[in-house]
């Protein structure tokens, strides 16, 4: 099967910032992404978990974007414009995709 290289960007961010992040992605013309729920985690700001958390207001989500390699920089600029003051992590992996016209 014909394959194409692409980047898989995984952004874990506070749920309250989700809409702002996806709006920023869309204005950077990244229109394909998938959002996964997060049950809990740990980082520099400590532990949290969906069941034990002090407020239902918090919580995080993970946004995964598959993009063409040349679109990586605008995507990261958009993501960090939102992540800047907020907690969250980003990682980028090389991947291959099949139906390239989709990305």
């Amino acid at each position: 099967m014909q394959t194409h290289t692409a980047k898989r960007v995984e952004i874990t961010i506070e749920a309250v910032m989700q809409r702002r992040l996806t709006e920023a992605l869309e204005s950077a013309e990244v229109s394909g992404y998938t959002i996964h729920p997060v049950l809990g985690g740990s980082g520099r700001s400590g532990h949290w978990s969906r069941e034990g958390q002090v407020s239902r207001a918090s919580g995080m989500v993970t946004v995964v974007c598959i993009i063409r390699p040349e679109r990586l920089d605008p995507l990261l600029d958009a993501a960090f414009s939102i992540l800047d003051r907020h907690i969250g992590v980003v990682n980028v992996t090389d991947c291959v995709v099949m139906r390239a016209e989709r990305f």
Partner: protein
Amino acid sequence: MDTILSLAAANLISPIILFFALGFAAALMRSELSVPEAIAKGMSLYLLLAIGFKGGVSLSEHGLDARLFFALIAGVLLSFALPFVAFALLRRLTGLSVVDAAATAAHYGSVSIVTFVAASTVLSSAGIAAEGYMVAVAAAMEAPAILSALWLMARSGGGAAGASALGPGLIREILLNGSIVLLIGAFAIGAITGPQGMAQIDAFIVAPFQGVLCLFLLDMGLVAGRGLREARGLLRPGLLAFGVLMPLIGAVFGLVTGLVLGLSTGGVALMMTLSASASYIAVPAAMRVALPEARPAIYLTLALGITFPFNLTLGIPIYMAVAQVLTGG
């Protein structure tokens, strides 16, 4: 004073308080007991719908009252004003940074609807009536405190960031947050459909209400206990003192307001409860967006781990007793 204390003691052995205590104790003992998030959210929708609807029906029964408007305005002003009191107290009692103090202050200007629900339940068990429109006052008090906190930040030089975050997006989110919309909407529907509407749905929103509140408070106890356990390192004596003093100070503001407005005994008690309570849903979410540097572990632990249990167990009976004595009710 004696009456106040004996009333408080009687209140402590009601099922709703005891289920809260059960949850709190289970969390401190690290039991894995938990209520699924969807169930907790479902119960909070139920409580908002029920309390809003009942308030609206009561309004429709007693007719509109000019005091409704004055009470709304007074609520908004209280919500604007209390963060300044809280901020000053925090800076005096604790070593919190400006941003942590401002964010915490926002919580104490705003209100906890569950505390309001618990107070309404205790009042109606005691047969003390209150103005139905206090539900609308509760909704009106949710948001203004957030603006005061951002203004406090701006004054301290941290304003650029906060102000930029306060775009039209955030303002709409705050004003149209789910709790406010459901509370006000159910209030309006209750006011429109009146006792006839009530007859259709009272088997859902009246009879099982206290039982649902028990299960809901069990979960609140679990969440509050877990928060307290994880953040115990942060709770210096100054913070602890604030968590108990601030609701009492807020209650005094509420008391004066209620007396000036000429509210009923129940209305005064509810106004005190609202002023004494601290938000733990709407304001934390707004603070994560607008003041992300403020530490949730501080403000949530105070609002939910200290002030909420204090109000539920000691605060509400005290406010009720004071209101009864001073209104002669």
